[in-house]
Protein backbone atom coordinates (compact mmCIF):
# COMPACT_ATOMS: atom_id res chain seq x y z
CA UNK A 1 0.00 0.00 0.00
CA UNK A 2 1.64 3.18 -1.07
CA UNK A 3 1.26 6.40 -2.87
CA UNK A 4 2.94 5.32 -6.06
CA UNK A 5 0.27 2.65 -6.76
CA UNK A 6 -2.36 5.33 -6.92
CA UNK A 7 -0.36 7.75 -9.06
CA UNK A 8 -2.00 8.47 -12.41
CA UNK A 9 -1.09 10.27 -15.60
CA UNK A 10 -3.60 12.44 -17.36
CA UNK A 11 -1.94 13.27 -20.63
CA UNK A 12 1.06 15.33 -19.59
CA UNK A 13 -0.18 15.78 -16.05
CA UNK A 14 1.13 13.41 -13.37
CA UNK A 15 -0.87 13.14 -10.18
CA UNK A 16 0.23 11.35 -7.01
CA UNK A 17 -3.39 10.44 -6.33
CA UNK A 18 -6.40 10.14 -8.66
CA UNK A 19 -8.58 12.14 -6.28
CA UNK A 20 -9.33 15.67 -7.49
CA UNK A 21 -11.33 18.44 -5.84
CA UNK A 22 -13.57 19.62 -8.66
CA UNK A 23 -14.16 23.19 -9.72
CA UNK A 24 -16.53 25.25 -7.61
CA UNK A 25 -16.41 23.20 -4.46
CA UNK A 26 -13.01 24.20 -3.14
CA UNK A 27 -12.90 27.96 -3.59
CA UNK A 28 -9.42 28.85 -4.91
CA UNK A 29 -7.66 26.29 -2.73
CA UNK A 30 -6.84 28.87 -0.07
CA UNK A 31 -9.18 27.54 2.63
CA UNK A 32 -7.46 25.32 5.15
CA UNK A 33 -9.66 22.45 6.22
CA UNK A 34 -8.05 20.76 9.20
CA UNK A 35 -9.76 17.45 8.50
CA UNK A 36 -8.70 17.17 4.85
CA UNK A 37 -5.66 14.95 4.29
CA UNK A 38 -3.81 16.74 1.49
CA UNK A 39 -1.44 13.80 1.03
CA UNK A 40 -4.31 11.80 -0.47
CA UNK A 41 -5.24 14.53 -2.92
CA UNK A 42 -3.86 14.60 -6.48
CA UNK A 43 -5.09 17.96 -7.69
CA UNK A 44 -7.43 20.79 -6.96
CA UNK A 45 -9.38 22.64 -9.60
CA UNK A 46 -10.06 26.26 -8.71
CA UNK A 47 -13.43 27.91 -8.85
CA UNK A 48 -13.94 29.09 -12.43
CA UNK A 49 -12.29 32.41 -13.27
CA UNK A 50 -13.45 34.70 -16.07
CA UNK A 51 -11.69 37.55 -17.84
CA UNK A 52 -13.64 40.21 -15.94
CA UNK A 53 -15.01 40.00 -12.39
CA UNK A 54 -18.47 38.47 -11.97
CA UNK A 55 -20.62 39.23 -8.95
CA UNK A 56 -22.51 35.95 -9.20
CA UNK A 57 -26.19 35.16 -8.85
CA UNK A 58 -28.59 36.50 -6.21
CA UNK A 59 -29.93 34.33 -3.40
CA UNK A 60 -31.08 31.64 -3.16
CA UNK A 61 -27.99 29.88 -4.47
CA UNK A 62 -28.50 26.53 -2.75
CA UNK A 63 -31.49 24.21 -2.74
CA UNK A 64 -31.56 20.69 -1.35
CA UNK A 65 -33.16 18.00 -3.50
CA UNK A 66 -33.73 14.28 -2.97
CA UNK A 67 -30.21 12.74 -2.90
CA UNK A 68 -28.54 15.93 -4.02
CA UNK A 69 -28.65 19.67 -4.34
CA UNK A 70 -29.12 22.47 -6.82
CA UNK A 71 -26.61 25.27 -6.92
CA UNK A 72 -26.82 28.57 -8.69
CA UNK A 73 -23.63 30.39 -7.72
CA UNK A 74 -23.27 32.00 -11.14
CA UNK A 75 -19.47 31.88 -11.37
CA UNK A 76 -18.83 34.63 -8.82
CA UNK A 77 -15.13 35.42 -9.19
CA UNK A 78 -12.74 38.38 -9.00
CA UNK A 79 -11.61 38.22 -12.63
CA UNK A 80 -8.38 36.79 -13.99
CA UNK A 81 -6.08 39.70 -13.10
CA UNK A 82 -7.07 39.79 -9.44
CA UNK A 83 -6.97 36.00 -9.37
CA UNK A 84 -3.35 35.93 -10.56
CA UNK A 85 -2.34 38.71 -8.18
CA UNK A 86 -4.23 37.73 -5.04
CA UNK A 87 -5.71 34.22 -5.15
CA UNK A 88 -3.03 32.26 -6.95
CA UNK A 89 -0.24 33.04 -4.45
CA UNK A 90 -2.45 31.91 -1.55
CA UNK A 91 -3.24 28.47 -2.97
CA UNK A 92 -1.90 25.78 -0.70
CA UNK A 93 0.28 23.42 -2.68
CA UNK A 94 1.89 20.60 -0.65
CA UNK A 95 2.45 18.42 -3.70
CA UNK A 96 -1.10 18.91 -4.94
CA UNK A 97 -1.35 19.91 -8.61
CA UNK A 98 -3.13 23.18 -9.33
CA UNK A 99 -5.64 23.23 -12.16
CA UNK A 100 -7.18 26.60 -12.94
CA UNK A 101 -10.74 26.53 -14.26
CA UNK A 102 -11.56 29.28 -16.74
CA UNK A 103 -14.53 30.37 -18.83
CA UNK A 104 -15.11 32.85 -21.61
CA UNK A 105 -18.26 34.50 -22.89
CA UNK A 106 -16.67 34.25 -26.31
CA UNK A 107 -13.66 32.35 -27.61
CA UNK A 108 -11.53 35.53 -27.78
CA UNK A 109 -11.71 35.88 -24.01
CA UNK A 110 -10.06 32.48 -23.64
CA UNK A 111 -6.95 33.66 -25.49
CA UNK A 112 -6.74 36.77 -23.32
CA UNK A 113 -7.03 34.71 -20.15
CA UNK A 114 -4.40 32.25 -21.37
CA UNK A 115 -2.03 35.16 -22.04
CA UNK A 116 -2.13 35.90 -18.33
CA UNK A 117 -2.01 32.31 -17.12
CA UNK A 118 0.41 30.42 -19.27
CA UNK A 119 3.56 31.91 -17.77
CA UNK A 120 2.48 31.23 -14.19
CA UNK A 121 4.69 28.44 -12.91
CA UNK A 122 2.33 27.54 -10.13
CA UNK A 123 -0.33 26.39 -12.57
CA UNK A 124 -0.09 22.76 -13.69
CA UNK A 125 -3.07 22.63 -16.04
CA UNK A 126 -6.07 24.59 -17.25
CA UNK A 127 -9.64 23.35 -17.26
CA UNK A 128 -11.96 25.04 -19.71
CA UNK A 129 -15.46 25.19 -18.28
CA UNK A 130 -17.82 25.02 -21.25
CA UNK A 131 -20.73 23.80 -19.21
CA UNK A 132 -21.81 26.03 -16.35
CA UNK A 133 -25.60 25.85 -16.25
CA UNK A 134 -25.93 29.07 -14.25
CA UNK A 135 -24.85 31.78 -16.68
CA UNK A 136 -26.83 33.02 -19.71
CA UNK A 137 -29.71 30.70 -18.99
CA UNK A 138 -31.50 31.86 -22.12
CA UNK A 139 -28.67 30.69 -24.34
CA UNK A 140 -27.24 27.23 -24.88
CA UNK A 141 -24.03 26.33 -23.07
CA UNK A 142 -20.97 26.15 -25.32
CA UNK A 143 -20.70 22.41 -24.75
CA UNK A 144 -24.22 21.87 -26.03
CA UNK A 145 -22.91 22.45 -29.55
CA UNK A 146 -20.13 20.40 -31.18
CA UNK A 147 -19.24 23.36 -33.40
CA UNK A 148 -18.96 25.84 -30.53
CA UNK A 149 -17.08 23.31 -28.42
CA UNK A 150 -14.54 22.83 -31.22
CA UNK A 151 -14.14 26.60 -31.62
CA UNK A 152 -13.47 27.20 -27.92
CA UNK A 153 -11.14 24.21 -27.58
CA UNK A 154 -9.14 25.18 -30.68
CA UNK A 155 -8.74 28.69 -29.36
CA UNK A 156 -7.62 27.41 -25.97
CA UNK A 157 -5.24 24.92 -27.58
CA UNK A 158 -3.57 27.65 -29.64
CA UNK A 159 -3.11 29.96 -26.68
CA UNK A 160 -2.26 27.64 -23.80
CA UNK A 161 1.23 26.67 -24.92
CA UNK A 162 2.41 23.47 -23.31
CA UNK A 163 -0.09 23.62 -20.49
CA UNK A 164 -2.27 20.48 -20.33
CA UNK A 165 -5.80 21.37 -21.42
CA UNK A 166 -8.81 19.79 -19.73
CA UNK A 167 -12.31 20.37 -21.11
CA UNK A 168 -15.35 20.13 -18.83
CA UNK A 169 -18.55 19.04 -20.51
CA UNK A 170 -22.22 19.17 -19.65
CA UNK A 171 -24.41 16.06 -19.51
CA UNK A 172 -27.40 18.17 -20.57
CA UNK A 173 -27.06 17.16 -24.24
CA UNK A 174 -28.56 14.62 -26.63
CA UNK A 175 -25.31 12.75 -27.25
CA UNK A 176 -22.28 13.59 -25.14
CA UNK A 177 -19.96 11.43 -27.28
CA UNK A 178 -20.47 13.80 -30.19
CA UNK A 179 -19.34 16.75 -28.05
CA UNK A 180 -16.49 14.76 -26.53
CA UNK A 181 -15.19 13.80 -29.96
CA UNK A 182 -15.38 17.40 -31.11
CA UNK A 183 -13.30 18.44 -28.09
CA UNK A 184 -10.79 15.65 -28.67
CA UNK A 185 -10.38 16.49 -32.34
CA UNK A 186 -9.91 20.17 -31.48
CA UNK A 187 -6.97 19.38 -29.21
CA UNK A 188 -8.27 18.55 -25.72
CA UNK A 189 -5.80 16.57 -23.59
CA UNK A 190 -8.29 15.41 -20.97
CA UNK A 191 -12.07 15.57 -20.48
CA UNK A 192 -13.89 16.23 -17.20
CA UNK A 193 -17.23 14.42 -17.12
CA UNK A 194 -19.68 15.63 -15.94
CA UNK A 195 -20.64 19.14 -14.90
CA UNK A 196 -23.89 19.53 -12.96
CA UNK A 197 -27.15 18.67 -14.68
CA UNK A 198 -29.41 21.57 -15.65
CA UNK A 199 -32.44 21.28 -13.41
CA UNK A 200 -35.06 23.16 -11.44
CA UNK A 201 -36.94 22.79 -8.19
CA UNK A 202 -40.41 24.19 -7.69
CA UNK A 203 -41.10 26.18 -4.54
CA UNK A 204 -44.82 25.50 -4.04
CA UNK A 205 -45.38 28.04 -1.24
CA UNK A 206 -44.06 30.95 -3.29
CA UNK A 207 -44.99 29.46 -6.68
CA UNK A 208 -41.47 30.12 -7.92
CA UNK A 209 -38.77 27.97 -9.42
CA UNK A 210 -35.16 27.63 -8.40
CA UNK A 211 -32.95 27.04 -11.43
CA UNK A 212 -29.54 25.54 -11.06
CA UNK A 213 -27.14 22.70 -11.56
CA UNK A 214 -28.00 19.39 -9.95
CA UNK A 215 -25.24 17.50 -8.16
CA UNK A 216 -25.04 14.72 -5.62
CA UNK A 217 -25.91 11.02 -5.59
CA UNK A 218 -28.92 11.70 -7.81
CA UNK A 219 -26.67 12.28 -10.83
CA UNK A 220 -24.17 9.45 -10.35
CA UNK A 221 -25.80 7.16 -12.94
CA UNK A 222 -25.83 10.06 -15.42
CA UNK A 223 -22.12 10.68 -14.87
CA UNK A 224 -21.25 7.00 -15.09
CA UNK A 225 -23.14 6.70 -18.33
CA UNK A 226 -21.33 9.69 -19.82
CA UNK A 227 -17.92 8.32 -18.81
CA UNK A 228 -18.80 4.85 -20.08
CA UNK A 229 -19.94 6.08 -23.49
CA UNK A 230 -17.17 8.64 -23.97
CA UNK A 231 -14.49 6.16 -22.93
CA UNK A 232 -15.51 3.89 -25.77
CA UNK A 233 -15.50 6.70 -28.33
CA UNK A 234 -12.38 8.72 -27.52
CA UNK A 235 -8.72 8.09 -26.74
CA UNK A 236 -7.98 10.82 -24.22
CA UNK A 237 -8.08 10.30 -20.44
CA UNK A 238 -11.27 11.12 -18.54
CA UNK A 239 -11.78 12.58 -15.10
CA UNK A 240 -15.00 11.05 -13.82
CA UNK A 241 -17.23 13.05 -11.50
CA UNK A 242 -20.84 13.48 -10.53
CA UNK A 243 -22.42 12.10 -7.40
CA UNK A 244 -19.37 10.48 -5.84
CA UNK A 245 -20.17 10.20 -2.13
CA UNK A 246 -18.35 6.99 -1.22
CA UNK A 247 -15.12 5.21 -2.07
CA UNK A 248 -17.09 2.62 -3.98
CA UNK A 249 -18.59 5.29 -6.25
CA UNK A 250 -15.03 6.18 -7.28
CA UNK A 251 -14.30 2.54 -8.15
CA UNK A 252 -17.44 2.50 -10.31
CA UNK A 253 -16.21 5.56 -12.22
CA UNK A 254 -12.79 3.96 -12.77
CA UNK A 255 -14.37 0.79 -14.13
CA UNK A 256 -16.65 2.80 -16.38
CA UNK A 257 -13.58 4.39 -17.95
CA UNK A 258 -12.25 7.20 -15.76
CA UNK A 259 -8.51 7.68 -15.20
CA UNK A 260 -9.08 9.92 -12.17
CA UNK A 261 -12.07 10.93 -10.09
CA UNK A 262 -13.51 14.23 -8.95
CA UNK A 263 -14.93 14.97 -5.52
CA UNK A 264 -17.77 17.48 -5.61
CA UNK A 265 -20.67 18.24 -3.34
CA UNK A 266 -20.36 14.78 -1.75
CA UNK A 267 -17.48 16.32 0.20
CA UNK A 268 -19.93 18.61 1.99
CA UNK A 269 -21.75 15.70 3.60
CA UNK A 270 -18.72 13.45 3.99
CA UNK A 271 -15.65 15.40 5.11
CA UNK A 272 -13.57 12.21 4.96
CA UNK A 273 -14.56 11.41 1.37
CA UNK A 274 -11.02 11.88 0.04
CA UNK A 275 -9.69 9.33 2.56
CA UNK A 276 -12.56 6.96 1.82
CA UNK A 277 -11.87 7.02 -1.92
CA UNK A 278 -8.15 6.64 -1.40
CA UNK A 279 -8.59 3.60 0.80
CA UNK A 280 -11.26 2.00 -1.37
CA UNK A 281 -9.13 2.33 -4.50
CA UNK A 282 -6.06 0.96 -2.70
CA UNK A 283 -8.14 -1.96 -1.45
CA UNK A 284 -9.54 -2.59 -4.92
CA UNK A 285 -6.05 -2.83 -6.41
CA UNK A 286 -4.90 -5.22 -3.70
CA UNK A 287 -7.96 -7.40 -3.98
CA UNK A 288 -7.57 -7.70 -7.73
CA UNK A 289 -3.80 -8.02 -7.74
CA UNK A 290 -3.27 -4.90 -9.79
CA UNK A 291 0.05 -3.07 -9.74
CA UNK A 292 -1.22 0.35 -10.62
CA UNK A 293 -4.49 2.19 -10.76
CA UNK A 294 -4.48 2.77 -14.52
CA UNK A 295 -5.11 -0.96 -14.93
CA UNK A 296 -8.56 -0.48 -13.43
CA UNK A 297 -9.66 2.12 -15.97
CA UNK A 298 -12.45 0.74 -18.13
CA UNK A 299 -11.95 -2.77 -16.81
CA UNK A 300 -15.47 -4.11 -17.23
CA UNK A 301 -16.40 -7.69 -18.05
CA UNK A 302 -18.58 -6.77 -20.94
CA UNK A 303 -20.97 -9.08 -22.68
CA UNK A 304 -21.40 -8.80 -26.41
CA UNK A 305 -24.18 -6.34 -27.02
CA UNK A 306 -27.21 -8.14 -28.38
CA UNK A 307 -29.35 -5.21 -29.42
CA UNK A 308 -27.56 -4.64 -32.67
CA UNK A 309 -25.42 -1.85 -31.26
CA UNK A 310 -21.98 -2.58 -32.57
CA UNK A 311 -20.23 0.64 -31.55
CA UNK A 312 -16.74 -0.34 -30.57
CA UNK A 313 -14.36 1.88 -28.69
CA UNK A 314 -11.63 3.36 -30.79
CA UNK A 315 -8.27 1.71 -30.23
CA UNK A 316 -8.28 1.37 -26.45
CA UNK A 317 -5.80 -1.07 -25.03
Amino acid at each position, binding site marked *: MGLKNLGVKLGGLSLRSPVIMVS*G*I*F*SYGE*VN*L*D*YLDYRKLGAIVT*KTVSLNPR*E*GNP*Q*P*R*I*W*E*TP*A*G*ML*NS*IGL*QNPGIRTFVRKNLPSIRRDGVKIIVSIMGQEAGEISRIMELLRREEKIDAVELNLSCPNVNRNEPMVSQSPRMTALFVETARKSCGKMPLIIKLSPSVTDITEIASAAEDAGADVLSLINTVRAISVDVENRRIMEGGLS*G*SAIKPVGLHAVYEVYRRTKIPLIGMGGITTGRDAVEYMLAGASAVGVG*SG*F*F*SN*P*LLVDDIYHELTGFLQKNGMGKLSEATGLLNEKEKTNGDSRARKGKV
Partner: protein
Amino acid sequence: MEAKNLSVYQNFIVANSLYWMEFEGSFTPPALPGQFMHVKIDNLFLRRPFSIAKCKNNRIGILYKVIGEGTEILSRKKKGDSLSVIGPLGNGYPLNADWKNICLAGGGTGIAPLLFLSDRLSGKDANITFLCGAKSRKDIAFRVLPCGIESLFSTEDGSYGRSGLLDGILKDFIRKSEKLDVIYGGGPAGLLKKIAAISNAMDIPAFVSLENRMACGTGICYGCVTKIWVGNGWEYKRICREGPVFDTREIRWD
Protein backbone atom coordinates in the same frame (compact mmCIF):
# COMPACT_ATOMS: atom_id res chain seq x y z
CA MET B 1 -12.21 23.11 12.94
CA GLU B 2 -12.83 19.44 13.47
CA ALA B 3 -15.00 16.88 11.72
CA LYS B 4 -16.16 14.27 14.17
CA ASN B 5 -19.02 12.31 15.62
CA LEU B 6 -20.65 13.63 18.76
CA SER B 7 -22.95 11.73 21.05
CA VAL B 8 -26.29 13.30 22.00
CA TYR B 9 -26.41 13.95 25.74
CA GLN B 10 -29.90 15.37 25.89
CA ASN B 11 -32.56 16.63 23.49
CA PHE B 12 -35.84 18.07 24.69
CA ILE B 13 -38.58 20.52 23.81
CA VAL B 14 -38.28 23.86 25.63
CA ALA B 15 -41.14 25.77 23.99
CA ASN B 16 -43.48 25.60 21.02
CA SER B 17 -41.42 23.64 18.39
CA LEU B 18 -38.20 24.84 20.05
CA TYR B 19 -35.70 22.23 21.16
CA TRP B 20 -32.52 22.24 23.18
CA MET B 21 -29.93 19.64 22.26
CA GLU B 22 -26.65 19.00 24.01
CA PHE B 23 -23.81 16.83 22.80
CA GLU B 24 -21.09 15.33 24.91
CA GLY B 25 -17.70 16.69 23.97
CA SER B 26 -15.82 19.82 23.05
CA PHE B 27 -14.07 21.33 20.07
CA THR B 28 -10.41 21.97 19.38
CA PRO B 29 -9.86 24.87 19.15
CA PRO B 30 -12.62 25.77 21.62
CA ALA B 31 -15.72 27.38 20.14
CA LEU B 32 -16.24 31.14 20.43
CA PRO B 33 -19.68 32.74 20.88
CA GLY B 34 -21.06 33.48 17.40
CA GLN B 35 -19.49 30.47 15.75
CA PHE B 36 -21.61 27.65 14.36
CA MET B 37 -21.47 23.96 13.69
CA HIS B 38 -22.54 22.00 10.61
CA VAL B 39 -24.57 18.92 11.45
CA LYS B 40 -25.23 15.89 9.25
CA ILE B 41 -28.76 14.63 9.76
CA ASP B 42 -29.28 11.04 8.69
CA ASN B 43 -29.50 10.69 4.91
CA LEU B 44 -30.25 14.30 4.05
CA PHE B 45 -27.71 15.40 1.47
CA LEU B 46 -26.78 18.74 2.98
CA ARG B 47 -25.68 19.42 6.52
CA ARG B 48 -27.60 21.97 8.59
CA PRO B 49 -25.83 24.89 10.27
CA PHE B 50 -26.64 25.71 13.91
CA SER B 51 -25.25 28.50 16.07
CA ILE B 52 -23.41 27.11 19.05
CA ALA B 53 -25.55 28.03 22.05
CA LYS B 54 -23.35 26.49 24.72
CA CYS B 55 -19.82 25.16 24.89
CA LYS B 56 -18.79 24.40 28.43
CA ASN B 57 -17.94 21.52 30.76
CA ASN B 58 -17.62 19.01 27.94
CA ARG B 59 -21.06 19.87 26.55
CA ILE B 60 -21.94 21.54 23.25
CA GLY B 61 -25.49 22.90 22.97
CA ILE B 62 -27.73 24.08 20.16
CA LEU B 63 -31.20 25.64 20.17
CA TYR B 64 -33.36 24.82 17.17
CA LYS B 65 -36.88 25.15 15.90
CA VAL B 66 -38.58 22.34 14.04
CA ILE B 67 -39.33 23.91 10.66
CA GLY B 68 -38.71 21.14 8.15
CA GLU B 69 -37.57 17.61 7.49
CA GLY B 70 -34.07 18.04 8.96
CA THR B 71 -35.07 19.59 12.24
CA GLU B 72 -37.97 17.15 12.52
CA ILE B 73 -35.53 14.23 12.36
CA LEU B 74 -33.24 16.04 14.78
CA SER B 75 -36.06 16.45 17.30
CA ARG B 76 -36.40 12.66 17.49
CA LYS B 77 -32.75 12.04 18.39
CA LYS B 78 -32.18 10.38 21.72
CA LYS B 79 -29.45 10.36 24.30
CA GLY B 80 -26.56 8.28 22.98
CA ASP B 81 -27.36 8.82 19.26
CA SER B 82 -24.31 9.85 17.30
CA LEU B 83 -24.21 12.73 14.81
CA SER B 84 -21.43 13.81 12.46
CA VAL B 85 -20.56 17.46 13.00
CA ILE B 86 -18.04 19.97 11.65
CA GLY B 87 -17.10 22.82 13.93
CA PRO B 88 -16.47 25.35 15.21
CA LEU B 89 -16.99 27.37 12.02
CA GLY B 90 -17.07 31.05 11.11
CA ASN B 91 -16.13 34.03 13.24
CA GLY B 92 -17.37 34.88 16.71
CA TYR B 93 -18.70 38.19 18.05
CA PRO B 94 -15.87 40.70 18.51
CA LEU B 95 -15.19 41.30 22.21
CA ASN B 96 -13.56 44.30 23.82
CA ALA B 97 -12.69 44.63 27.50
CA ASP B 98 -13.47 48.36 27.32
CA TRP B 99 -17.11 47.70 26.47
CA LYS B 100 -18.77 47.79 29.89
CA ASN B 101 -22.40 48.40 28.91
CA ILE B 102 -23.61 45.63 26.70
CA CYS B 103 -26.96 44.77 25.17
CA LEU B 104 -27.79 41.38 23.67
CA ALA B 105 -30.87 41.42 21.44
CA GLY B 106 -32.22 38.25 19.90
CA GLY B 107 -35.44 37.06 18.29
CA GLY B 108 -36.66 33.47 17.98
CA THR B 109 -33.85 30.93 17.64
CA GLY B 110 -31.58 33.92 16.98
CA ILE B 111 -30.99 34.03 20.71
CA ALA B 112 -28.87 30.85 20.37
CA PRO B 113 -25.45 32.46 19.80
CA LEU B 114 -26.35 35.13 22.37
CA LEU B 115 -26.95 32.49 25.03
CA PHE B 116 -23.38 31.34 24.55
CA LEU B 117 -22.16 34.94 24.52
CA SER B 118 -24.10 35.81 27.67
CA ASP B 119 -22.52 32.89 29.47
CA ARG B 120 -19.08 34.08 28.38
CA LEU B 121 -19.79 37.66 29.49
CA SER B 122 -21.44 36.86 32.82
CA GLY B 123 -19.14 37.34 35.75
CA LYS B 124 -17.17 39.95 33.81
CA ASP B 125 -17.06 43.52 35.02
CA ALA B 126 -19.85 44.76 32.75
CA ASN B 127 -23.55 45.68 32.75
CA ILE B 128 -25.29 43.20 30.53
CA THR B 129 -28.92 43.21 29.44
CA PHE B 130 -30.53 40.50 27.36
CA LEU B 131 -33.51 41.46 25.20
CA CYS B 132 -35.50 38.54 23.94
CA GLY B 133 -38.27 38.67 21.34
CA ALA B 134 -40.78 35.98 20.43
CA LYS B 135 -44.12 35.63 18.64
CA SER B 136 -46.00 34.60 21.74
CA ARG B 137 -45.61 33.43 25.34
CA LYS B 138 -45.48 29.82 24.20
CA ASP B 139 -42.52 30.57 21.90
CA ILE B 140 -40.18 31.75 24.64
CA ALA B 141 -37.36 29.28 25.14
CA PHE B 142 -35.95 30.59 28.43
CA ARG B 143 -37.71 32.94 30.84
CA VAL B 144 -34.67 32.75 33.05
CA LEU B 145 -31.38 32.64 31.20
CA PRO B 146 -28.97 29.86 32.12
CA CYS B 147 -26.32 32.47 32.98
CA GLY B 148 -28.65 34.47 35.26
CA ILE B 149 -28.29 37.74 33.34
CA GLU B 150 -31.25 40.11 33.53
CA SER B 151 -33.55 39.77 30.55
CA LEU B 152 -36.46 41.72 29.14
CA PHE B 153 -39.06 40.19 26.88
CA SER B 154 -41.33 41.28 24.11
CA THR B 155 -43.97 39.22 22.34
CA GLU B 156 -45.77 40.14 19.15
CA ASP B 157 -49.16 39.30 20.67
CA GLY B 158 -48.39 40.85 24.03
CA SER B 159 -48.88 37.56 25.90
CA TYR B 160 -45.58 37.92 27.74
CA GLY B 161 -43.41 40.94 28.46
CA ARG B 162 -43.95 44.01 26.37
CA SER B 163 -46.25 43.86 23.38
CA GLY B 164 -44.68 44.37 19.98
CA LEU B 165 -41.46 43.63 18.19
CA LEU B 166 -38.05 43.46 19.77
CA ASP B 167 -36.90 46.76 18.27
CA GLY B 168 -39.49 48.46 20.46
CA ILE B 169 -37.88 47.35 23.71
CA LEU B 170 -34.43 47.94 22.25
CA LYS B 171 -35.30 51.58 21.54
CA ASP B 172 -36.79 52.00 25.02
CA PHE B 173 -33.82 50.36 26.63
CA ILE B 174 -31.37 52.62 24.82
CA ARG B 175 -33.42 55.70 25.75
CA LYS B 176 -33.28 54.74 29.43
CA SER B 177 -29.63 53.70 29.44
CA GLU B 178 -27.05 56.29 30.33
CA LYS B 179 -24.50 54.66 28.13
CA LEU B 180 -24.41 51.67 25.81
CA ASP B 181 -21.11 50.51 24.30
CA VAL B 182 -22.24 47.70 22.05
CA ILE B 183 -25.25 45.73 20.79
CA TYR B 184 -24.96 42.06 19.85
CA GLY B 185 -27.83 40.71 17.77
CA GLY B 186 -29.22 37.48 16.39
CA GLY B 187 -32.44 36.47 14.66
CA PRO B 188 -34.33 36.84 11.39
CA ALA B 189 -33.00 39.32 8.81
CA GLY B 190 -35.94 41.70 9.33
CA LEU B 191 -35.10 42.09 13.00
CA LEU B 192 -31.36 42.44 12.37
CA LYS B 193 -32.06 45.16 9.84
CA LYS B 194 -34.01 47.05 12.50
CA ILE B 195 -31.19 46.59 15.01
CA ALA B 196 -28.81 47.96 12.37
CA ALA B 197 -31.00 51.02 11.81
CA ILE B 198 -31.20 51.72 15.55
CA SER B 199 -27.47 51.26 16.08
CA ASN B 200 -26.80 53.57 13.18
CA ALA B 201 -29.20 56.26 14.41
CA MET B 202 -27.84 56.09 17.97
CA ASP B 203 -24.23 55.67 16.87
CA ILE B 204 -23.73 52.51 18.91
CA PRO B 205 -21.61 49.69 17.43
CA ALA B 206 -23.66 46.58 16.67
CA PHE B 207 -22.67 43.11 15.58
CA VAL B 208 -25.21 40.61 14.30
CA SER B 209 -25.17 36.96 13.31
CA LEU B 210 -26.64 36.30 9.85
CA GLU B 211 -28.36 33.11 8.77
CA ASN B 212 -28.74 31.43 5.39
CA ARG B 213 -29.02 28.11 3.64
CA MET B 214 -25.55 26.61 3.47
CA ALA B 215 -23.94 23.81 1.52
CA CYS B 216 -20.26 23.58 2.54
CA GLY B 217 -20.30 25.72 5.71
CA THR B 218 -16.54 26.18 5.38
CA GLY B 219 -16.07 28.87 2.73
CA ILE B 220 -15.44 26.71 -0.31
CA CYS B 221 -18.75 26.81 -2.24
CA TYR B 222 -20.00 30.46 -2.13
CA GLY B 223 -23.60 29.37 -1.64
CA CYS B 224 -24.49 31.41 1.47
CA VAL B 225 -23.30 34.85 0.39
CA THR B 226 -24.75 38.21 1.42
CA LYS B 227 -24.12 41.75 0.18
CA ILE B 228 -21.32 43.51 2.03
CA TRP B 229 -20.16 47.08 1.43
CA VAL B 230 -16.65 47.19 0.00
CA GLY B 231 -15.21 50.60 -0.91
CA ASN B 232 -17.90 52.46 -2.84
CA GLY B 233 -19.72 49.32 -3.92
CA TRP B 234 -20.71 45.96 -2.57
CA GLU B 235 -19.58 42.37 -3.00
CA TYR B 236 -21.10 39.04 -2.12
CA LYS B 237 -19.26 37.73 0.96
CA ARG B 238 -19.63 34.29 2.47
CA ILE B 239 -21.72 34.19 5.65
CA CYS B 240 -19.97 30.96 6.68
CA ARG B 241 -16.45 32.33 6.20
CA GLU B 242 -16.37 36.13 6.49
CA GLY B 243 -19.33 35.89 8.94
CA PRO B 244 -21.69 34.75 10.29
CA VAL B 245 -21.12 37.75 12.59
CA PHE B 246 -20.88 41.09 10.78
CA ASP B 247 -20.66 44.69 11.90
CA THR B 248 -24.10 46.07 10.95
CA ARG B 249 -22.42 48.97 9.13
CA GLU B 250 -20.85 46.49 6.67
CA ILE B 251 -24.12 44.89 5.63
CA ARG B 252 -26.03 46.11 2.61
CA TRP B 253 -29.67 45.44 3.45
CA ASP B 254 -32.00 44.89 0.51
